[in-house]
């Protein structure tokens, strides 16, 4: 991967990548086969997304004409989104998921950063047993039932805290960050200390600016975890009005129950529409669940290898 990046950087000076001198020119058949393979892989990922997005922005008649999901563009309409985002179950769940994601990610990143730095200073007091306590969590999970009983006895059932606190610190992320921090040259830290910085100053002024990429990746991991949180919500939340988006997606799209407050209900009641007409609305829910990931992903993606592989291998 680093090779990829360095080649990409030299791009302007070498516009066309040249084949190594020792490599024989590719056969036409080989090229075609490779092209087909790459095409199949790309299509397998992109085709479902294409169909879903297209269906969600198609007018109801187009969905009916297609007899299901729309594969070829046929008209454009945002009524499905207007319906979903005009208040009601989906709007509320989007707000809930957004809130949990923002608050949870901030909390997790801050706690993880602090601990990773605190454990990264060589020879500091008690850092070995503390690190061991963190690493030990890799080995053996506490189990579903005791965790559930704990959350219950802490009075966290049916609260948003139950979605954030139990998984707030991922030991893996902590270890990745820590090993990255340990690779920062000690001289930099020393000179900051001579200039009078305390540990907090070293973290915020020296270490963090040097670790933006990894921190971004860690933040993405946490954020995606919170945005995609299904099981904790399923387990701990009883009230429908507290549901995050993934539960809404499961109940109204995967299981196909009518969404309260949308015309899906009306159409089944008065029989004017049909299940097909609500398909655009369902696919709009799917798109709403995907879009935040699609927006954040490209900005963070370039740091993946540097951050994750380095950390994972050293951790």
């Amino acid at each position, binding site marked *: 991967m680093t090779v990829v990046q360095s080649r990409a950087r030299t791009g302007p000076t070498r516009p066309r990548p040249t084949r190594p001198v020792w490599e024989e020119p590719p056969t036409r058949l080989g090229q075609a086969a490779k092209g087909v393979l790459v095409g199949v892989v790309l299509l397998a990922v992109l085709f479902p997304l294409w169909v879903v997005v297209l269906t969600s922005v198609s007018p109801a008649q187009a969905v009916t004409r297609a007899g299901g999901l729309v594969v070829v563009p046929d008209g454009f309409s945002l009524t499905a989104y207007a319906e979903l985002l005009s208040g009601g179950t989906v709007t509320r769940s989007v707000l809930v998921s957004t809130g949990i994601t923002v608050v949870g990610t901030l909390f997790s990143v801050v706690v993880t950063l602090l*601990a990773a730095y605190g454990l990264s200073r060589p020879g500091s007091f008690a850092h070995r047993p503390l690190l061991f306590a963190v690493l030990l969590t890799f080995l053996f999970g*506490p189990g579903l039932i005791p965790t559930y009983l704990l959350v219950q006895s802490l009075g966290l059932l049916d609260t948003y805290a139950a979605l954030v606190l139990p998984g707030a610190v991922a030991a893996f992320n902590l270890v990745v960050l820590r090993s990255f921090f340990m690779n920062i040259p000690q001289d930099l830290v020393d000179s900051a200390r001579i200039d009078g910085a305390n540990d907090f100053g070293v973290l915020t002024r020296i270490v963090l600016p040097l670790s933006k990429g990894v921190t971004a990746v860690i933040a993405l991991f946490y954020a995606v975890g919170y945005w995609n949180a299904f099981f904790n919500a399923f387990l701990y939340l009883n009230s429908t009005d507290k549901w995050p988006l993934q539960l809404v997606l499961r109940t109204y799209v995967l299981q196909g129950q009518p969404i309260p407050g949308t015309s899906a209900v009306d159409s089944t009641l008065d029989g004017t529409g049909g299940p097909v007409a609500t398909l655009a609305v369902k696919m709009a829910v799917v798109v709403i669940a995907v879009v935040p990931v699609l927006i954040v992903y490209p900005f963070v993606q370039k740091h993946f290898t540097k951050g994750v592989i380095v950390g994972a291998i050293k951790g």
Partner: protein
Amino acid sequence: MPGADVLERPATAAGRPSPPARRSSWARRLRRDWVLLLMVAPAIGLLVVFHYVPLLGNVVAFQDYSPYVGIAGSPWTGFANFRRILGDPDFWSATVNTLAITAFQLVFYFPVPIGIALLVHSLLSPRLRMFVQSVVYLPHFFSWVLVITLFQQMIGGAGVLNSFLRSHGASPVDVMTDPDLFLGLVTAQAVWKDAGWGAIVFLAALSTVDTSLYEAAAVDGAGRWRRLWHVTLPALVPVIVLLLILRLGEALTVGFEQFLLQRDAVGAAAAEVLDTYVYFTGVVNSDFSYAAAAGLVKGLVGLALVLAANKVAHLAGEQGVYSR
């Protein structure tokens, strides 16, 4: 804090042979590092409360736990719950399902990331390579609910595939609700979601291969496929061995949400795995102690497998998960 103390920490790291007064040095280090300890405290606190405390909560497996009186008031029953597990056909059926899924994925999932890595690595244009990478990593960041929804919309009863089949006069097939196809279905979902992401490790290994090896092989007359066989694959072998061993260590863990979400559609006979079994007996049927015992058995066997796998990894000359 005296100025001389500021730079002391690196020096201590190097190791003074024996501090003259042990207790005062402890106190001094504590005073010097209290900021660091304060930084670590929230994370450790969370891990203690939400990891170590419930770990102790596993004692309910040895009780007849009642939520009304709590752990302190519930009667102890010794190993009764564990004996009940041994005679419970549903537990064994869930175990068999779990192992079948692991075995199936080992054969049909495991090689796919390697293939993707080789394919991506063989692309010459850096721009195309980056693009393909970005696309194949993407599904890893989707939730299971989303992945299963997408599968349902593509190959489910009312999905694109079947509306295509119907409009061409063929009889539709609903892959999503057929228990016989479930193994293949969950493996396909796992491949779609995570195989691209899994390739990242192999790509990292491939990028460290010395190109002069290829050159030398080519000079010696090795063709494209021989270079793949004799240079590229050997470079991947350590990673392959490591991941294979790790996967075996997690043989009892196949994930939770994927099976919980599809259990209704295909029935418990095919989709019940150990994790969902614990959930349904414990949380749904309120048989907390029995479910905790089942979870504990799973956890202990899993732990033994991980330790054994890591031992094997060490013997195979790899680093393992928790070397040192």
